[in-house]
């Protein structure tokens, strides 16, 4: 079953909120993981690990550096769904 972009955004917001303590509604598509959400590389890898499991996708390490905003991650996960 594929997830809609909206479902991916909502799921990602929950994961980021658990990791950072930020409210889910502050995790919107245009936000930068590093500049807006203050997420360091270890936290980013935690988010990637949890997102891979939640959405049954693979996000290669080489791709993670291209995921600047929450929207980038949503788009990548959406495209990676089988």
């Amino acid at each position, binding site marked *: 079953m594929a997830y809609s972009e909206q479902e991916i955004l909502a799921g990602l917001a929950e994961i980021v909120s*658990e990791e950072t303590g930020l409210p889910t509604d502050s995790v919107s598509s245009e936000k930068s993981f590093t500049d807006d959400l203050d997420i360091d590389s270890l936290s980013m890898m935690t988010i990637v*690990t949890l997102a891979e499991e939640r959405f049954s996708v693979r996000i290669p390490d080489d791709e993670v550096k291209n995921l600047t905003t929450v929207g980038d991650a949503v788009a990548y996960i959406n495209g990676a769904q089988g």
Partner: protein
Amino acid sequence: MSTTPDVVITGLGATTPLGGDVPSTWRAALAGESGARTLENDWAETYEIPVSFAAQLKVRPEEALTRPEMKRMDPSAQYAMIAAREAWADAGAPELAPERLGVVVSSGIGGIWTTLDAWDTLREKKARRVLPMTVPMLMPNSPAAYVELELGARAGAHALVSACASGAEAIGYAAEMIRSGRADVVVAGGTEAAIHPMPLAAFAASRTLSTRNDDPAAASRPYDTQRDGFVLGEGAGIVVLESAEHAAARGARVYARISGVGLSADGYHITSPNPDGRGQVTAMNAALAQADIAAADVVHVNAHATSTVVGDLIEARSVRTVLGDAADRVALSATKSMTGHLLGGAGALETIFTVLALHDRKAPPTINVDQPDPDLVLDLVRGEPRTLPDGQIAAINNSFGFGGHNVALVVTTA
């Protein structure tokens, strides 16, 4: 002329099977309450563990920490953080240069929940699902490191490991950091979070745990003729140590002094204390010598006494050897009868009890002692707390660990 600084205690913090902070824990200890309860899980049946109870925290950590903090820290670090925040606030959050602030927080077992959870994940879901924070959470210095980060301490952060003596050794090392001039204030203590089926099974395998499953609250009974082993506990105790000069300059409340630290090793056996008590005697004598006090000044001993058949009496005889006839006037308390055994947290929590016993002039009771062992050669406080004498008085807190580690701390009134 330079002199060696005196070391005082200006802050206390804890989360224990008796309470979520120091005041509630101390009240429960003076009231003689037990923190041991039947575990609300199926570990005993599922894994055929012969022990179905433990002394778990009275207040769960999620009531004191945020969700991200809970996820980022192993339970051993969570408990230490709760206790450290209380101790720091209790000390009045002293302002000082970060280079003069140190941290020493020990755990006897380390991040065992994180270690075993990650192993389960690896086996079930392969390496890609192992969380990136696994190593910083499982490492045994993690509690010390998180407290160091919380306070921005830069004089040094250490995690001394000596099994059930770890918490006391941490406080002893912290006192030395101040005496040697490395720091003015050190946040120190011990923590443990090992109530997990694996260590429970492993301690049961070593035949050191009580199996009194039908009456958990009566299971920890140091010096009672019917004692059959210790009760696994969890929690943390943290104190703020400070040079007397630094504390006086900022007008801090002083609970008591850490006047002497004595360390030794048995060189005898990996789990059994040496029956001749020589290592314990060496540690206590060293602590009294550093404190420069006479045996007659010691009016209270918080015993290591875990409720094992062999260990309790060896310690009592060692105290008698060190203090001689003065031992007749010592009020002996075995607080593990109430808290269970916090392993790496035990020595720190019992230092807090010792400090409060002197500060409030009340030695806490030892519960569950229906029939004192006839070979007990000391005066055990049972039933009610015992009032301690006025004037300058001293107490010893003993902690011993698997491996033959012996730590004695001499605490004196402010």
